């Protein structure tokens, strides 16, 4: 019996360590893949690294906070990326050098558009959830009222006895 317990424990330990090993390995593999990509697409990577700074900040803050909804960075990121895209296209279809990266990115229009878009994304994450909540609450209230009306109709048709099963279920939990 004791032997069996030991075996079970050992199996648990092995199984808990295995994912960690796989995680380290996969990260390492990813890094190995990214190095050639970075070398080939260095201008794009540099541009996006600078342009997507608001998204990065949002992601860091979101992960630090207690908020369990991990969608704010995606909202900021989506708009941030949308704002970056015209300038990225401009980079790709012009000289596509490190100098042109600096030139394009540091133009006031680009900074305004890229970070402004990120701001809009932030606004989205700030205002859309309350609007959705309000809409759904109203919908819920109307649904509850509808259910109660139907219950009342059943009550009128069948009397108090119709609620017996509901009461039993309520009592039995």
């Amino acid at each position, binding site marked *: 019996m004791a032997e069996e317990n030991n075996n079970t424990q050992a199996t648990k330990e092995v199984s808990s360590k295995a994912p960690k090993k796989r995680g380290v390995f996969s990260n390492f593999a990813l890094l190995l893949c990214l190095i050639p990509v970075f070398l080939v697409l260095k201008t794009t990577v540099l541009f996006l690294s600078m342009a997507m700074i608001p998204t990065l900040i949002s992601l860091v803050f979101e992960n630090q906070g207690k908020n369990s*909804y991990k969608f704010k960075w*995606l*909202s900021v990121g989506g708009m941030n990326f949308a704002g970056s895209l015209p300038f990225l296209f401009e980079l790709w279809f012009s000289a596509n050098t490190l100098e042109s990266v600096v030139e394009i990115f540091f133009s006031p229009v680009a900074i305004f558009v890229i970070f402004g878009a990120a701001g809009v994304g932030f606004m989205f994450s700030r205002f859309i*959830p309350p609007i959705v909540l309000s809409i759904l609450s109203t919908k819920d209230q109307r649904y509850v009222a509808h259910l109660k009306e139907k*219950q009342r109709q059943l009550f009128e048709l069948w*009397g108090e006895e119709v609620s017996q099963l509901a009461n039993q279920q309520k009592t039995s939990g």
Partner: protein
Amino acid sequence: MEETSVNASDETLDPIKQFRNAFAEEDKKEEAQETVKETVVLKTSKKSVVQIGGEFYVYPDSPIPALDMQNAKAFKAEAIDKSQSKVYALVCNPDLPIRNDHITKRKGLKLAGLLRLVDAEVAMWPDFNRKTMILIYDYPEGGRVGTGMRFTPKFTKDEVNIGPKWVSPILSALSELSERGLTHRAIRPDNLYYLDEEKTQVVLGDCISAPPAFEQNDSLEPIPSMMCNPIGRGDGSIADDLYSLGGTLVWLAVGYNSTEGMTNDELIELKLSKGSYAALLGHERIVLALTELLRGLLLDDENLRWNTIQVQQWIDGRRATPLQNRITKTSSRSIQYCGAEYDNYPLFAYALMKNWDSAAETIRSERFETWILRGFEDKPMLAAINAAKELAIIQFSNREKQNDYLVFRTILNLYEHAPIVMRGYRFMPSAIGYMLAYSYMHNEDVTTITMMILKGYLEAWYQVHQNLQAIQALKTVSNNIQRQELGLGIERVLYELCDGVPCQSPLIKKEYCVSERDILPAIENASKTVDTSQLPLDRHIAAFLMIHYSSKIGEAISDTNSSHPGIAARGLLRAYATLQAVFGPEKLNGLSSWMGNHIAEMIKNYHNLETRMNLEKTLPKLIRKGSLVEVYQTLDNPEAKQKDQQDFLNAQKEFAGMAKEVEELETNRSKRIDQCIRLGYEVSAIVSVGIALLVMFLLLLGRVMK
């Protein structure tokens, strides 16, 4: 919302009130009409004729005292179609149970040696102002054989015709009855008739109008039967009838009761000490030819007494010597008790029976033990009595009841043929039904009889007589007594054990119901006078129907015990509707109106309130039609009920589902808000990413267009 619904249901769910209101006015009109009708009947009715079963007229103004029985008066009767032979009617005492088994098995049959029972019907008898059983018998043209206590001896000294003329017809009658599982128990000189005017045919008369041996002269009964209360003698056996035949022959031979002037106690003691033959004949001289027969018939030991074969052999001329009575063991020393000395068990047992109050003390005394041990050297008897003492303590906590039981067991041990005795109650176990019936019919308490059944008096008697089958049956009886539901209890035992007792319900007692078909018309009549707030079914009616018609309505009667008012009302209606469907009458306006007050609960068997309301509207109209069958079919429509039940279950499930949803939405509010906010973030993310993709698409499109 809930309050509104409850109020609404209050109004719709109290149909009783609605019924009462709806019927109040209608009932008043009907009552008035009934009163008018009754008055007409009373004014036009003639006291001079009573019709029996549509076949006979009985004339209350024409009594025939010569044919009266002690508890039934004789009246002139005739067949309506004049085709029947001459008949007369015996009008039974409505306060006595009759012997219905005889009616069932003998009605209309011409049996040798018996006055033919032509018909038997219940009818309203004007002198009693209530219904009673009226028996129609063939008219005995030659009249009674022995009228009064004294008459001219019927046999001359040189009479040679005694066997064929006197014994043979009675023997035939007893054989006919025996074949049908019946006994006569009323063989006596004044119940013998000459059927023909020439007085050549002797027949036995009525034995139905009173309980077995109820009217018998004590001297004509065997000793155990003599010890009983007249009502407690029971059906007995053919041996008892043969004994009565012997006594009757003695009476007919001498022309008077040879024991005339003796009290019952004196006669019992004389029979116990000298034997019945010697006691009845005394110093009388009788026809020599009869001596052997009488010795055989008057043997006190039932097992030695002549049976029908031996009597037939005697008639045929084959003379046999009867066995002698077993000699009762006497003790060398006697015991003194209540001023007399006793030297044998049976006489002492009877002395204990007579002097009940001091009996227990004597049984517990040392001198009684000494008498048994030294006088009889009977250790088993002493052991049996000591066992009875212990049993009495186990059975009863009360000293007086212990004493009663001890005295009973001691008497039974000392004289095993003794009846069941408890103070004034003395009866054979087969008479328990008649004992109960008599008590009920005379409004006497039945507690003592009930106690005797439950506390082992009867069981002890059967144990002594080793009747295991009866002990088993007794257990069922005891169980029935102890159950208090309608259709069970002591009332059921009454109707189970006494076939001839009419239903004793206070509601219909006057109607003399002896059959299930009589019940509805009787209740219909009762509905005009009784308080209709009480149920039209009581313990007596339920028990009576359970016994007489259990096969069809037993289940319905059982349902009336349900704690659910709807099921109980359904049982009541179903029982009476079945009776009406089978036996009629087609219209029972009074009863259906009465039932209306009690079956409203049945509407609640339907769940749907609309259905209930519709039924509440329809029912008063149906009830006014007087057809319980129609009412039952409407209220208990199986298809409608099944649909209602199915729909109700679905509605319950639907309601429960909705209640669960409402609860989830109302009670898990914070969780729901969380869900909504999460959805909001998802939406904002989707919008952002969507815009990014749109921008990318537009830029690519722009490039392609260039």
